[in-house]
């Protein structure tokens, strides 16, 4: 197992390198002059040139990349020239809300997705199955941002059951209950699509596994149907489900961009959208790099989780 972890960690390095190159290249291609963004509407060309030079943006791209990587390896992602603070500070401030939102959405999606998927598979063609299947179909067919809008409109404004946005109340906020109340709508919205995907996948995987010979063996041993389904079938289905949960983590992290915007969640997604619009290149680069690295880490974790679950992968 330790060897496996080391091997996978080693494989992550070239991927991270590739990620850094892509992040740097793509973001550097973003049109619009950061110097102009700093200087505001009516900057003179001379001012723009001056600031461009100060920022080092007049250097050739490869040189900029090397400088960026060198700083990166020293834990320095540069200084946001719009927010006037180190990029790493801003990212750290935004990290927890995003982790909370994406984490909650992923947990919701996984728990409900897998649970409903199992229920649907076990009661295949029954009324529950049909209901779950239809809901899952709606889930994968609904634009999440649209769903978020409707949620805000109904549960936030019309019924006023839940706060319409933000992460904490401005006064007396910050408690667990307060954050949870703020979390419900955005997390549910974000979880809807991912959950629907998982329902469909789990249902399919369970049905597939239930046809396997070892399930017949389990039944031949006289095990109760509950043991057969949860002790034998589910574990095997999970091997197929876990990588998809990892994939959904990616969808959730990406979808957070929309949801954080719609729900004013103070996370990395909203930071990125606004940083893109203000051409805060270092902030965008840092943010995308952190999110992508986080996602690489998640993939690593799903790989390992799969290995923990499936001895065949462990000894591969």
């Amino acid at each position, binding site marked *: 197992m330790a060897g496996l972890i080391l091997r996978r960690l080693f494989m992550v390095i070239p991927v991270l390198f590739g990620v850094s190159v892509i992040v740097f290249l793509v973001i550097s291609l973003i049109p619009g002059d950061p110097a102009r963004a700093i200087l505001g509407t009516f900057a003179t*060309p001379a001012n723009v040139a001056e600031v461009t030079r100060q920022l080092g943006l007049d250097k050739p791209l490869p040189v900029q990349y090397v400088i960026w990587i060198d700083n990166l390896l020293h834990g320095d992602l540069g200084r946001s020239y719009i927010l006037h603070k180190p990029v790493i500070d801003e990212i750290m401030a935004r990290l927890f809300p995003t982790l909370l939102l994406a984490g909650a959405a992923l947990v919701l999606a996984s728990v409900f997705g897998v649970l409903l998927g199992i229920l649907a598979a076990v009661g295949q063609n029954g009324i529950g199955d049909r209901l779950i299947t239809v809901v899952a179909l709606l889930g994968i067919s609904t634009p999440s941002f649209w769903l978020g809008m409707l949620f805000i409109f109904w549960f936030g404004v019309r019924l006023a059951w839940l706060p319409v*946005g933000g992460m904490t109340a401005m006064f007396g906020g910050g408690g667990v209950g307060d954050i949870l109340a703020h979390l419900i709508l955005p997390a549910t919205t974000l979880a809807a699509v991912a959950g629907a995907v998982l329902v469909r996948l789990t249902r399919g995987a369970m049905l597939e596994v239930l046809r396997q010979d070892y399930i017949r063996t389990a039944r031949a041993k006289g095990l109760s149907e509950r043991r057969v389904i949860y002790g034998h079938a589910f574990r095997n289905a999970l091997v197929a489900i876990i990588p998809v949960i990892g994939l959904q983590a990616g969808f959730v992290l990406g979808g957070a961009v929309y949801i954080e915007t719609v729900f004013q969640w103070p996370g990395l997604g909203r930071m990125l959208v606004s940083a893109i619009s203000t051409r805060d290149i270092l902030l965008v680069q840092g943010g995308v790099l952190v999110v992508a690295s986080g996602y690489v880490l998640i993939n690593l974790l799903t790989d390992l989780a799969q290995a923990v679950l499936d001895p065949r992968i462990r000894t591969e």
Partner: protein
Amino acid sequence: MSPMMLTRRSLLGSVAAVSAVGLPRFSLAQSPADVLVIGHVAELQTLDPAQAVTISDFRILINLYDGLLHYKDGSLDVEPGLAESYEVSPDGKTYTFKLRKGVKFHDGSEFNADAVKFNFDRVLDSKHPYHNTGPFPFVFTLGPIEKVEVLDPHTVQLVYKEPYAPALSMLAGAIGGLAGISPAAVKKFGKDFSRNGGGAGPFKFVEWVSGQRFVLEANADYWRGPPKLKGLVFRPIVDENARVSEMQSGGTDITIEVPPDNIAGFTSSPDFTYYQQPGPHLWYLVLNTKTKPFDDKRARQAMNYAINKGAMVTDVLKDTATVASSVTPPAFTWAFDSALKPYPYDPAKAKQLLAEAGYPNGVDVTFYVTESGSGMLSPVLMGTAIQADLAAVGIRAKIETYEWNTFLGKIIPALPADVAVAELSFMTQDPDMHPALALRTGGAVNSGGYSNPKVDALIDQGRQETNRDKRAAIYKELQDVVYDDAPWAFIANWKQNAVSSARVKGFELHPSFTTRFYGVSKV
């Protein structure tokens, strides 16, 4: 009454009680009566007024920093601020300020002439040890300052290289707040001053949580006396729909910039107060005077006739703006030519002018539209409506939409040759600035490449004339010339708006587009 009836009635009663309470409604922990929560359009970028470039930053900073001068309530006339009095030399080049005594910065250090000099030197002198805390992009609006001299601990003198009539107005504006920065704070924080700040205004900085809130507390030692509110909380809510939802659900006490379509919902409710204030703003279309078709004055006038500005202002902007007539906004009451009536909506006349200019079969143009942007109101919507109006007279406009910064990069300093029209807007504090930058030959944002010696001369005269009545006459003439020559299509002058809960008292929007919370209270 039978027991049966009683039971039934009490049952009904309890049902009624439940429905009166309604379904469980989520309520934010009630905000304290002495703290105001403001729905703010953007995340704050900097706490340094010398570095700030956006109106949304200035709206916050105006509460932290006092300048040497203030604007009076409800007008763009100046009154003393940190300076008790001021004096302008007859040649219009030297401004002497007597400073208020006993004023302390938030960090306890003393406000005096040395502090003022430090602040101006920091932003003007590239060799100043703290010049590297910049850049200071808007400082040029203060004019060509040659030097700052300390005459005594409470007297300071600004010496200009040449007469600069807008100086007083600019010093009273938000950028003028840089005069009231605490030098001790700049020295203490260096580059991080922009994250910590330090002034002598009515509120002081407490907390800044990215994407969540920016908190100020009352400055108990404020020289005009402590503010009525104990604190201000600015919530950055970029999305306008979210701003409206938060206001409706009680998440904010006051919201600046409510989308026009949502105004009716607030004005019809007794729970809210609606505010509106015209300011010096112009929304216009830059016409490329260097290339066809708008190298011809008749084609430019045709644009002005073709667009139904009245319908735009009423139907699209829901009366959050008025129809513009020329380059100077009516908010500059003293300089505005009220006799000049806007171009009427007259598609027939537009067609005729277009034909005279040589386009009897209409013309194809490229039209740059921005997605958003400071002061741009609803640019996509307005662009679309304009496109439809233009199509009706044969000007077939192809819209290209760009994100704000990209947009600016594309149109400044000049429109590309193949682009005939672009949206733009301008907010200013003096009638000099906009024409000087955008109409004067070679001006920094003269995107249309407009050049008219008469206009250039009027701009130069107006800048040097210190007598306000004489200045006013110059600007009125400028408006007439520009109206006729139509380098732009003049569309609208915006009225800033805001909505607060009815609990908020004493709030007023200011023509400078800033939000001043010193006199505000909450009941």
